[in-house]
C-alpha cells in the first residue's frame, strides 16, 4: 500500500455570519486509506467536507490534490479532481432506474447508451462486491440500496477520493457490516475514503486514522490502532465524560397507555401502521427501535391525535380520576381537555415542536397561551419558564428573546424537551430526541428522560442508536414496515437480536415478553 498523500488541506477557514464553522483546519488523506472525521454535531465535519466537494467555498486556506493547489468551486470541479461525496440525504430521482440516476448529468462525450452504462455499473458492482440491479427504480429500493446507487454514482465518475457523510445512520447493523466490507475493498484498490461519523465503535472498526474536530478546529489526528474509545471521546468533547447511562428499576409500574390493533394508512392507501399493539407503563422507558421510516413517527402522531387512525384503540388510564379514555379520533385539544397529560417531543423540532422565527418566550407559550379568558397574551409566566429552562438545562443563548432557529441543535432540543417536561406529563413521547446532538447534550436528554421515569411518567423513546436503546430502556419494541416485530427486555436483549427484528416485517414471538 503506497502511502502517498491524495488530498491535503492547509489552514482552511469558513465562517457563517460571524461564527466559525471551520478554523485553520489542516488535514491529509493518503491513498489507500480510510480516514474518519470524528466530532460532535456542530463541530464542522460536514462543512469541511462540503468544501472539498465544492458545495461551499472556503473563506481562506488552500486545498492540494496530489501536491498541486486546486480551486474547487462547484461539485463539477470536485469531480474533475476525482472527488465524490455521498451526502446524508440522497439526491436521486425517484422514478428513474439505478443506471439512469448514475449517468444523470454526466458529460463524457459519449452517446447516451443505457445498455452500455448498465454493464459498466455491473462491472463496478462486481469489483467492489455491491449487490445491485441496474434496472430497478429508486422508489422500489430500500435505503441501503439507494445508498449503493449513490456510491456507484461517484465511482462511475471515476472518483478516487470518496467522502461519506454519516453513511450508517440509516442502516441496520447487518447492512453496516456489508458497507464496511465494500469500503475495505475500495481501500485495497488504492482509493482514499473519508467517513464522517460520530459512532465511536464504527471508527474503531473501520478506519486507519481518525481526525477529531472540536468547535471547528482540528484537535488531533490519531492512528486508530493506537487509541481507545475513551481517548477519542475526550478529544472530541474536551473533557472526560462517563459513557454510562444509569438505569433504575421501574417503581410500581402500572399500565398507563394501552394500544391495541392500531392501523393507519396514508392518502395513497399505503399502510403506515399494521396492527400495532403495546402497553406503555408508568415509571418505565419503552424504547422503539426500527429502521427510519418504519412507522415510528406515525405511531406517535396517532397517539398525539395528529394522525388519522383506521382501526384500533388507544386507552389511557387516568391516574387522577381512575377513568379510562380512548384517545382515538380525538384532536390534540380534545385530548388535553380530557385531562390527559401527554407531552410529545416530535422528530421535526423546528417544523413541528417549535417555531423557528419566534423567540424562546413565545415558543414557551405554544402549549399554554390559551390559558385565561383574556384576548391578550400573557407573557410573564412563559418568560419565567424560559428563564428557568435556560438556567436549569444550561441553554447557550444570548437571552430569552433570541429566535430559536439561531440556537444550535442541542440548545433547540433542550428548549423543546424542557417545555414538554414543564407540563408535568404522565406520558412523555420523544422521537429521536438526541438526533444531531453532541454527546454532552445527548446525556442531558437521557438524564431528563430518566428523571421523568423515576417520577412515574410513562416514557416512550424512539431512538436510532441501538447501543443507547439497550442502555436506557426497560423494554424495547421493534417495528418493521409499520408492524411490531417484537418486544424485548432492554436488560437482556442483544444488538444482533434487535437488528434481526428490524428487518422482519411480520410479528414474531419475542423471547422476553
Amino acid at each position, binding site marked *: 500500500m503506497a502511502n502517498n498523500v491524495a488530498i491535503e488541506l492547509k489552514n482552511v477557514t469558513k465562517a457563517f*455570519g460571524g461564527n466559525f464553522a471551520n478554523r485553520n483546519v489542516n488535514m491529509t488523506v493518503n491513498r489507500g486509506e480510510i480516514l474518519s472525521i470524528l466530532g460532535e454535531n456542530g463541530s464542522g465535519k460536514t462543512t469541511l467536507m462540503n468544501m472539498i466537494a465544492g458545495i461551499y467555498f472556503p473563506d481562506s486556506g488552500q486545498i492540494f490534490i496530489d501536491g498541486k493547489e486546486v*480551486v474547487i468551486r462547484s461539485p463539477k470541479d470536485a469531480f474533475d479532481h476525482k472527488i465524490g461525496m455521498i451526502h446524508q440525504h440522497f439526491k436521486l430521482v425517484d422514478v428513474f432506474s439505478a443506471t439512469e440516476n448514475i449517468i444523470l448529468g454526466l458529460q463524457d462525450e459519449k452517446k447516451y447508451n443505457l445498455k452500455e452504462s448498465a454493464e459498466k455499473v455491473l462491472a463496478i458492482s462486481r469489483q467492489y462486491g455491491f449487490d445491485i440491479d441496474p434496472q430497478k427504480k429508486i422508489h422500489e429500493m430500500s435505503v441501503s440500496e439507494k445508498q449503493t446507487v449513490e456510491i456507484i454514482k461517484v465511482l462511475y465518475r471515476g472518483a478516487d477520493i470518496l467522502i461519506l457523510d454519516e453513511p450508517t445512520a440509516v442502516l441496520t447493523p447487518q447492512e453496516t457490516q456489508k458497507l464496511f466490507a465494500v469500503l475495505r475493498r475500495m481501500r485495497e484498490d488504492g482509493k482514499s475514503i473519508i467517513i464522517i461519523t460520530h459512532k465511536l465503535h464504527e471508527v474503531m472498526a473501520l478506519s486507519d486514522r481518525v481526525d477529531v474536530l472540536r468547535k471547528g478546529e482540528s484537535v488531533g489526528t490519531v492512528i486508530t490502532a493506537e487509541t481507545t474509545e475513551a481517548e477519542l471521546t475526550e478529544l472530541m468533547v474536551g473533557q472526560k465524560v462517563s459513557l454510562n447511562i444509569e438505569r433504575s428499576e421501574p417503581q410500581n409500574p402500572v399500565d398507563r397507555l394501552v394500544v391495541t390493533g392500531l392501523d393507519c394508512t396514508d392518502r395513497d392507501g399505503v399502510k403506515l401502521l399494521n396492527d400495532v399493539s403495546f402497553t406503555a407503563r408508568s415509571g418505565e422507558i419503552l424504547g422503539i427501535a426500527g429502521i427510519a421510516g418504519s412507522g415510528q413517527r406515525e405511531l406517535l402522531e396517532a397517539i398525539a391525535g*395528529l394522525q388519522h387512525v383506521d382501526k384500533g384503540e388507544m386507552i389511557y388510564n387516568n391516574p387522577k380520576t381512575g377513568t379510562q379514555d380512548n384517545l382515538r379520533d380525538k384532536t390534540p*385539544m380534545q385530548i388535553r381537555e380530557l385531562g390527559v397529560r401527554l407531552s410529545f417531543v416530535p422528530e421535526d423540532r423546528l417544523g413541528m415542536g417549535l417555531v423557528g422565527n*419566534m423567540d424562546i418566550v413565545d415558543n414557551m407559550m405554544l402549549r399554554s397561551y*390559551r390559558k385565561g379568558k383574556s384576548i391578550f397574551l400573557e407573557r410573564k409566566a412563559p418568560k419565567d419558564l424560559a428563564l428557568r429552562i435556560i438556567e436549569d438545562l444550561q441553554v447557550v443563548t444570548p437571552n430569552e428573546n433570541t429566535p430559536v432557529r439561531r440556537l444550535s441543535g442541542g440548545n433547540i432540543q433542550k428548549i423543546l424537551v424542557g417545555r414538554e417536561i414543564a407540563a408535568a406529563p404522565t406520558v412523555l413521547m420523544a422521537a429521536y430526541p438526541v438526533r444531531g446532538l453532541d454527546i454532552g447534550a445527548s446525556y442531558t436528554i437521557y438524564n431528563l428522560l430518566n428523571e421523568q421515569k423515576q417520577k412515574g411518567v410513562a416514557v416512550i423513546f424512539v431512538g436510532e442508536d441501538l447501543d443507547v436503546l439497550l442502555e436506557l430502556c426497560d423494554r424495547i419494541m421493534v417495528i418493521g414496515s409499520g408492524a411490531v416485530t417484537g418486544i424485548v427486555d432492554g436488560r437482556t436483549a442483544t444488538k444482533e437480536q434487535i437488528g434481526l427484528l428490524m428487518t422482519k416485517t411480520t410479528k414474531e414471538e419475542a423471547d422476553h415478553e
Partner: protein
Amino acid sequence: MSNPKKTHSALFHLVKRAPLPWYWNLAVRAIAVVLALVVSAVVITLLTQKNPIEVYSSMLDGAFGTELRIWSLLQNIAILLCISLAVTPAFMMRFWNCGAEGQVLVGGLATVSVMMFLGGKIPTPLLMVVMVLASILAGIIWAVLPAVCKALWNTNETLFTLMMNYVAIQLVAFFLKLFVKSGSGILTPMPQYGLPVIGGQSYLLNILIVALLTILVYIYLKYTKQGYEISVVGESENTARYIGVNVKKVIIRTLVVSGALCGIAGLLLVGGTNHTISTTTAGGRGFTAIMVSWLAKFNPIYMVFTTFLIVFLQKGAQQISTDFRLPSAISDIITGIILFFIIGCEFFLQYKILVAKSGKEAK
C-alpha cells in the same frame, strides 16, 4: 485542472451576515436612498437635459408645495396604509391575499349603493351606520369566499383572490351601466351623503380613522392570542396542528379581519373622499399594498414609513411630468430606480461579499 482559464481563487463570494445593529440597518438604508437619488439624477440629465436639482425640488413641491397638496398626500397615505394593514394579517399567515383590490372595490360599491338608495330616506346617523356595516360586510364576503375554499378544499388562494378582483370590477361596471341614467358611465358625486367632515378638513376623519386602525392592528398582531395564532399558522401549519390550533378556523377568521379592513378602505375612499365610484377607484392600491406590507416586514408601525415613501414618490413624480411636460414614463422610471435601491439594499443587510485575495469586506 482541465480548464486553463481557471484562476487559483474565486473572484468573490457571498457570506451570510450576523445580524447588524440597528444603526447600521438605518445607515445602509440611508445610503441606498442617497445612491438612488444620485442614479436617478444621472438618468434624468441624460434623458431630458434638465437640471436634476430642479426636478427634485419639483418633486418636493408636488408632495408638500401647498396646504392642499399636503392634505392630499396624507389622504393618499391613509388609504394605502389602510389597505396595507388589511393584507398584513393574511400575509403573516402565508395566505397570499392578492384580492385587496377587489375587496376594496366591493366595499366602495356597498357604500355607494347605500348612499344612492338610502340617502335622504333615512336619518343621517342611521345612514352612516348602515354604510359602515354594508362596506365591512361586502369586504368580508369577498375575502372569506377564497378563505373558506382554501380551508375546506385547499384551493389556491392566489388565483382565487385575483379572479375575485375581476368579478368586483365587472360588478362595478354593471352597476354604473344600470344606474347612471345619462349613459356616460360617470356617477355624479353625492357629497351630501358622505362621511361627516370634522374640523373643517375633508380628509381629517379618514386620517384619524387609519391612525387608530394602525395602532389596533399592531396590538392585534403582537399582543393578542389571535395574532399569535396567525404567526404560528404562518410559520408552520404542522406546529399549529401539534399544539391543537384549528387551522381552518384561523384561516377563515383572519380573512374576515383582512376583508373587513379592505371594506373600511373602500368606505373611506368612496364615503370619505370620492363620493362616487368607478372601476378604477381602488387604483391598483390593492397590489401596491402588498409591497408596502412586505417592505415593512409586516410591522404596522414601519408601514407608516413605507407608505409615505411610496405615496411621496407617486405625488412627486406626477408633479415632474406636469412641470416639465415630460411623459409620465419618466416618473415611473424614477420610482422604479428608488424602489430598486431600497429593496436591493436588503441584500446587503443579509449578506456580505468577500473579494478574493485581499480578503477584505466589501459593501
